[in-house]
Every structure is written in C-alpha cells, then in structure tokens.
C-alpha cells in the first residue's frame, strides 16, 4: 500500500523490520527440541517417582499378604506368646489397632476440620490481609512445621497437667494429631477459598444475600471438592503418625473402644512395635506351628492393612468430591 495512506494511529510509530523477528529454522528447531526434551524430562520424572512408589507398594503387598487373613483382622494381640499360634488358630491380629486408628484419627478430624475451615474462612473472607490475619496465616505456616514428636510431647504434657500424671488415652492422641492436621487443613482450605472467583461472591452479595450465607452456600459449596481433598491430604498426613502416638495413646495388646480412657494401639504403632520385636523365640521343643519370623510378618501385614485403610478413606473422599463436583468454566 502507498505511503500516504499510512495510518493515523501509527503516526510517529517506529518502523519495524519484522524479518528480524521471523522464526529462523534454527530457532524453530531449538524450540521444538526443547519442547520434546522437556516433555521427555517430565515423563521421566514420573517414571523415576514410580520406582520407589511401586517398590514400596510391591514390598508391602508381597510381604503383607502372607498373614493378611480374616483371623488377622478379627483378633487382637492378647494371649499371643512368642511364635506360637493362638487358640483361634492365628498368630494374633490388628482388630484393636484398626479400631484405635479409626477412633483416634476420627477424633483428630472432629477437632481440626471445623476449626481449620473456619480459620480459613476468617483468613480469606473476613480478614482482608489485616495485621491479625497476617499473623494468623504466618503462624499457620509455622505450625505446619511443628515436628510430630513435639506435637506428641505437647499433648502428653497438656493431659498430664489437666488430668493428672501418666494419663494416656486415645483422645490425647487425637489432640496431638489435630495439632498436626490443623495447619494442613487451614492451608488447603485457604487455597481453595482463594480460588473461588470473586465474581461469585459479588453475584451472591448483589442478590442481597448475607455474607454468612454467601460463604456457606456459595463459597464453601464451590470450594467443597477442593476442601474435601485437602482434608484427605491432612488425614493422610496424620493417619500414619507413629512417634507422637507412642507417647500419647500408648500401646496395648487388647481391644479398647473407649477413646477417652485407657491406652489404644494404632496401626502405625503396631507396625513399629512388631518391627521392633523383629523375631519371636521358638523353644527347642516347639512344634512346626511356631513361626520365629512372625513379628515381621505381622508388621508387613499391618502395614498392608494400613495402606488399605488409607486407600478406602481416599476412595470415600474422592466419591464425596465427585458427587459434589463443580463443573469448571469451559
């Protein structure tokens, strides 16, 4: 086109030699290679991660399946002596530990999830980055770094002071675990609430809906799948805790269903205790039914049970997330 029609917008605009910016063969090749290379690297990352993951699962399954049977799931460890079979025909089991794990983790959930969600609501919906909120969210970060063993010491001492020395029971373990869960719950809920588009809050508020209902029925509802998966992560974070429960919930061979009195065994503690026993003694005159390697076998079987419990919890969480799933924008 002729020079004189040169566009009034571009008056004074520099003249650009676009050939300079044309993709050259080499630059295109470089980009393509880079793209392929990164795709390869990213896929490789996955493969690398799969090695230990598969190995952990494989080891646990192969070693655990050996003793995992109905007897193992329906009996506790009372009356188990050395490598000898019990009157029921098994070698002891994890019923008490499954009950303990579910109750203690459940207790921790009941404490930390409501508090965690409301704290996230405070941070995202009410605080708007005020001084207090900054402090709270900073401290939540800090709290996520509390070593589990310290959480255990904290719960232990708190119960010692309030309920007398030597108090050991399930809820004490729940308190220790909830201290560990809380920051994870708050952080993930916070992230999820932040992701809820502001448009939706405005739309609801503009309808004359109170803030409480907007948060409860729009914001939390929209973020629900994320919150559920966040809480599952938080549970996953604590369900396998061993060190704090050794101090707070203790270890017992029999079944205790009372969260508020008496020691309770959890699955991870059970695994650890059986691992610590390593092997059982079989006296010289023992029958072939006496299995010296039984403690390690029980440890692996309990580890497998623990993984299955986690799997089931995950499944439940996913199902919940799916049922309430929010269709995202196209």
């Amino acid at each position, binding site marked *: 086109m002729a020079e004189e029609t040169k566009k009034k917008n571009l008056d004074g605009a520099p003249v650009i030699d676009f050939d300079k910016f044309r993709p050259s063969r080499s630059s295109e090749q470089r*980009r393509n290679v880079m*793209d392929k290379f*990164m*795709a390869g*690297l*990213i896929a490789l990352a*996955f493969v*690398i*991660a799969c090695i230990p993951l598969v*190995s*952990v699962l494989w*080891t646990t399954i192969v070693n655990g399946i050996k003793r995992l049977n109905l007897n193992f799931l329906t009996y506790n460890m009372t009356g188990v002596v050395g490598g000898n079979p019990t009157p029921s025909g098994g070698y002891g089991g994890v019923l008490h530990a499954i009950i303990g794990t579910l109750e203690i983790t459940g207790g921790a959930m009941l404490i930390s999830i*409501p508090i*965690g969600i*409301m*704290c996230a609501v*405070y941070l995202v919906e*009410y605080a708007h980055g005020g001084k*207090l909120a900054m*402090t*709270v969210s*900073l*401290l939540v*970060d*800090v*709290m996520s*770094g509390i*070593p589990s*063993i*310290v*959480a255990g*010491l*904290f719960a232990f*001492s*708190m119960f010692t002071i309030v309920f007398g020395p030597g108090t050991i029971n399930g809820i004490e373990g729940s308190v220790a675990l909830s*201290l560990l869960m*809380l920051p994870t719950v708050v*952080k993930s809920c916070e*992230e999820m609430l932040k992701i809820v588009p502001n448009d939706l809050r405005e739309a609801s508020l503009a309808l*004359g809906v*109170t803030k*409480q209902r907007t948060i*409860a029925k729009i914001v939390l509802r929209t973020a629900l799948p994320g919150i559920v998966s966040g809480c599952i992560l938080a*549970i*996953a974070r604590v*369900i*396998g*805790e*061993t*060190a704090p429960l050794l101090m707070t919930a203790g270890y017992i061979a029999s079944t205790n269903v009372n969260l508020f009195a008496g020691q309770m065994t959890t699955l991870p503690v059970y*695994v650890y205790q059986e*691992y610590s026993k390593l092997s059982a003694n079989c006296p010289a005159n023992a029958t072939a039914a006496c299995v010296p390697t039984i403690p390690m076998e029980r*440890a692996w079987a309990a*580890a497998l049970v*623990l*993984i299955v419990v*986690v799997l089931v919890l*995950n499944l439940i969480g996913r199902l919940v997330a799916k049922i309430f799933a929010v269709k995202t*924008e*196209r």
Partner: protein
Amino acid sequence: MSSQDKTALAPSGGKTADKVFRGVAYACGILILVVLAAVFLFLFFRAWPLIGGDQKANSDVISSFTGGKVSSFWGYVLPLLFGTVLISILALIIAFFVSIGIALFISHYAPKKVATGLSYVIDLLAAIPSVIYGLWGGLILVPAIYPFWNWVANHLGFIPLFAGPAANPQRTVATVAVVLAVMVLPIITSMSRDIFLQTPTLQQEAAYGLGATKWEMIKLAVIPFGRSGIVSASMLALGRALGETMAVLMILSPSVTGYSIKILQASQSNAIASNIAAQYPEANDLGVSVLIGTGLILFLITFIVNFVARKITEKAGA
C-alpha cells in the same frame, strides 16, 4: 408484584447468623494464636531447667547423651540442627524437580483419563505412613541403593559432598534424603498439580495463540500462575522433612556430634526429631528437658524457614 409492599432498606434477616458466623470465624483465627502460644509456652516451660536449673546437672545429662564429648547445650544442638537442615534441603532438592515434573505430567501431559488415575496414585502415596517408609527404606532401599551411591562416591568423590568411601550398608544422609524426598514428593506434587490445573484457560490459550509450544505455554502461563503455590507446597514439604522422625530414626546411622557434609558416609550427621525419639524413652526428667530444648530449636528453625519462605512468596505475588 410482591416487591411493592417492600419498604426501602427494610432490615434484612439473618443478621444474628451473620454475626455468630463471623464471631466463630474470628475465634478460630485467634485460636491458632492460642494453640501456638500454648505449644511454645509448654516447650519453653519444659526446657526451662536448661536455663534456670542446675547447670552442673545439665552438663552431666548432655555428657551422658554424647559419651562425654560435649557438655554444653549449644555444642549438642547445633550439630543436630546442621544435620536436620542438611537432610531436609537435600530431600527437598531431590523432590522439587521431580514433583513439578509429575505435577505437570498429570496436569498437562497425560491424557485426561490416565491423569485421574495417576493423581490418585500420588494422593495415595502421600498417605503412606512414615513408619512404612522407614521399613521400606531400612530393609529394601538401603541394600539396593548401595551400588549407585558407591558409583557416585567413586566417580564424583572429588566433590566434598560425595566424598567416599561409600558406607555399606548405606544408612547415610544420602539414602535418608532419598526416602524423605519420596515422602514429601506427593505433597509438592498434589498441591502444585491442583494449582496447575487451575491455570485459567484464557491464559493458556493466550500463550498458545501466540504460537507457543506446550513447554513455552507452561513457562508463560502455568508456572507464573502456580509460582506462589509451588513455593508454599515446597515449604510444607520442607516442614515435613525437618520434622520427620520415624523414617530417619529407622534408616539413618547417626553421629553423636559433629558437622559433616559427607553424605555418603555413615555416622556423620543426625537430625533433631529422630534424636528425640531415640533418646526420649530412656531419658530421665532432665534429659527430657534437654530433648525438648532441642525440639524448641527445631521449632524456631521451622519458624525462620517458613518466615523467609513467606517473604519470598509475598514478593513473588506482588
């Protein structure tokens, strides 16, 4: 129409609910402060004999922990701290790149159907208890990884970090870091994956529209969007690594005291949390105070780490 009998600005219902809800939210926010203060106070209270108690008794207890090598609290805790940080940072470095890779693989590379399955696997792995990682690490990984670390020590031994000879069995910082990396990897992965998946389609299309390749699109749209999420995920992961007890306890051959970066040799470093677990059962009252003192230090260090990370996040977000 029903609107006609409305008077202007009639008071709305639900005000009490509004107030209560708000109050509960504030209370829960403040509860965090209270809980943390309680933990702090307790640790401080239990560690008090270290400061206010009989110093002679303190040195005796610490000497009993260290076979007489060290008798001052700082001389005891600083090497532990060094080891803790060394292990955690190594674990984070190993896990970070792999995790981001996996997160991107799930969010942007794998076919959608497969991706759901893959992220399920990763979520599940986040839930594998540390005691199982301890079992696996101590019994399976330690012998399996020896040839690799031995190779590293032989070929890269000139780097102080990899100075040989590689210990056999490999109950070393290097192996523990690998296990911790595996443990924290799902945390970083699942959080960054969630964030990556939230990258607005508009942003991604903007990049594609400019003729970006997939990787360039990720650099232009996905990573910047996810940056603060990645940092906070890494911090969560670091926090977990710093405080990890059982896996370290069950795998690492610890040192009594001393600073070392020889990660392929045994008995070179120790971590605070696992040291507490190892010493607590047999410790007397004063010994427990010393151990809680080390716990307090660990607590402070996580405070600092998170504080710094937080500042980085804030800057990046600005």
